[in-house]
């Protein structure tokens, strides 16, 4: 004690074992837990939403109880403990620097070495008398099951991809139905991810709004609402890439995300030109800037998707990025010419 740190309110007690006292955690998520989820979905303090690595208990587990292994991202930890309601089990939390299981496994922090070290550190062999660990299936990207068994004696069972399938998995005697193995990317999965995409794009929006306003101030030499000309089309282009493309993903043709973004951005830009009856110069400026911007933000959604290979993303980034830069540069040149009243 005397460390000044407060015990989190989701720790409700402790359980005595041969390896010492182990904190018992609640399986009921509180309003505070849910508010925390909304915050991280909006990208607020997302990188500091962690729980301390180590071992925890739910219910009243004993030496025969299951051990579930997870990441120390609190959102992940909360999903798991919420699904263990009514069960007695141990939760072994690896140090993944507050990153979710799949991404952490991709980087190797949810990995073989960390799991082996954590088993020793919490003295798991003194807590349980069996040798089974249940890992989320997506942890397999970072964990080599046979290596863990060779080094520690613990056998790794890969459970379902989604924590919500755990009760059914246990009820079915640790048999994984085929659909429990599949990563999905449904409309609601995608909708959940878009607030973060939008928040991340806000930073670019702010910079662009300042640039657009300053450019218009130089051009018109007076301060009125016309300074904000160009801001709305720009924001529309960003939202097309960061919000509409993710939502409509399977409905837009092309495999490359940048092409999906370009196509939807182009459709929006043509609609804008027709509806606003833009002149030739403005039309060219719109066509240079807007589809390219949508394309860029759509391309960034590859990182949130569940099916893109690195080789494919490298190919796409390598081709699209120079084209996006050229297109935007062309738009900047057109703007300059317009400001200098050349066109």
């Amino acid at each position, binding site marked *: 004690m005397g460390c000044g740190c407060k015990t989190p309110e989701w720790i409700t007690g402790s359980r005595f074992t041969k390896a010492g006292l182990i904190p018992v955690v609640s399986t009921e998520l509180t309003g505070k837990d849910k508010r925390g989820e909304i915050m991280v979905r909006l990208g607020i303090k997302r990188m500091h939403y962690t729980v301390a690595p180590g071992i925890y208990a739910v219910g009243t587990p004993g030496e025969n109880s299951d051990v579930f292994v997870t990441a120390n991202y609190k959102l992940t930890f909360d999903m798991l403990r919420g699904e263990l309601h009514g069960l007695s089990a141990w939760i072994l939390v690896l140090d993944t620097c507050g990153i979710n299981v799949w991404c952490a496994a991709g980087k190797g922090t949810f990995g073989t070495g960390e799991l082996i070290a954590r088993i020793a550190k919490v003295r798991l062999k003194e807590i349980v008398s069996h040798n089974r660990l249940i890992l989320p*299936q997506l942890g397999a990207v970072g964990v080599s099951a046979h290596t863990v068994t060779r080094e520690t004696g613990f056998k790794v069972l890969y459970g379902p991809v989604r924590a919500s399938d755990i009760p059914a998995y246990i009820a079915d005697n640790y048999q994984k139905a085929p659909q429990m193995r599949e990563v999905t990317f449904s409309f609601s999965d995608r909708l959940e991810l878009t607030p973060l995409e939008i928040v991340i794009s806000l930073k670019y929006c702010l910079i662009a709004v300042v640039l657009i306003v300053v450019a218009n101030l130089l051009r018109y030499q007076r301060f009125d609402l016309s300074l904000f000309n160009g801001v709305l089309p720009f924001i529309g282009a960003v939202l097309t890439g960061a919000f509409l493309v993710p939502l409509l993903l399977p409905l837009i043709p092309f495999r490359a995300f940048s092409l999906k973004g370009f196509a939807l951005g182009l459709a929006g830009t043509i609609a804008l030109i027709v509806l606003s009856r833009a002149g030739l110069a403005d039309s060219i400026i719109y066509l240079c800037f807007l589809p390219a911007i949508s394309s860029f933000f759509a391309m960034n959604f590859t990182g949130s998707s569940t099916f893109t*290979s690195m080789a494919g*993303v490298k190919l796409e980034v390598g081709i699209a990025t120079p084209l996006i830069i050229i297109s935007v540069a062309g738009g900047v040149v057109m703007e300059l010419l317009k400001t200098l009243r050349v066109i």
Partner: protein
Amino acid sequence: MRYAYLKNGESLVIDGNKCTGCGICIDVCPHSVLEITEGKAMIIDKNYCMECGACRLNCPADAIAVNSGVGCAYAVLNGIISGKNASCGCDGDTSGGCC
């Protein structure tokens, strides 16, 4: 709903001589790319393979080869700009949609 992407699964190769048909690769594959046929793992749907590498890492017979890495434009761009491998960092990185 299953999605295909560019170059998916191009680097995935199974060595039929080494494969013992244990099935762990099928257990860890998130996109049902593999199947056991006549006691050997076979690729049945290359198009859906995102090259995550879970099968290679967990194959006790070392029978699978695949070039895995993060399929994230932000990470790839980061890698190009910093001259390092594509990565979204574990170092308090707060920007980027990756992970």
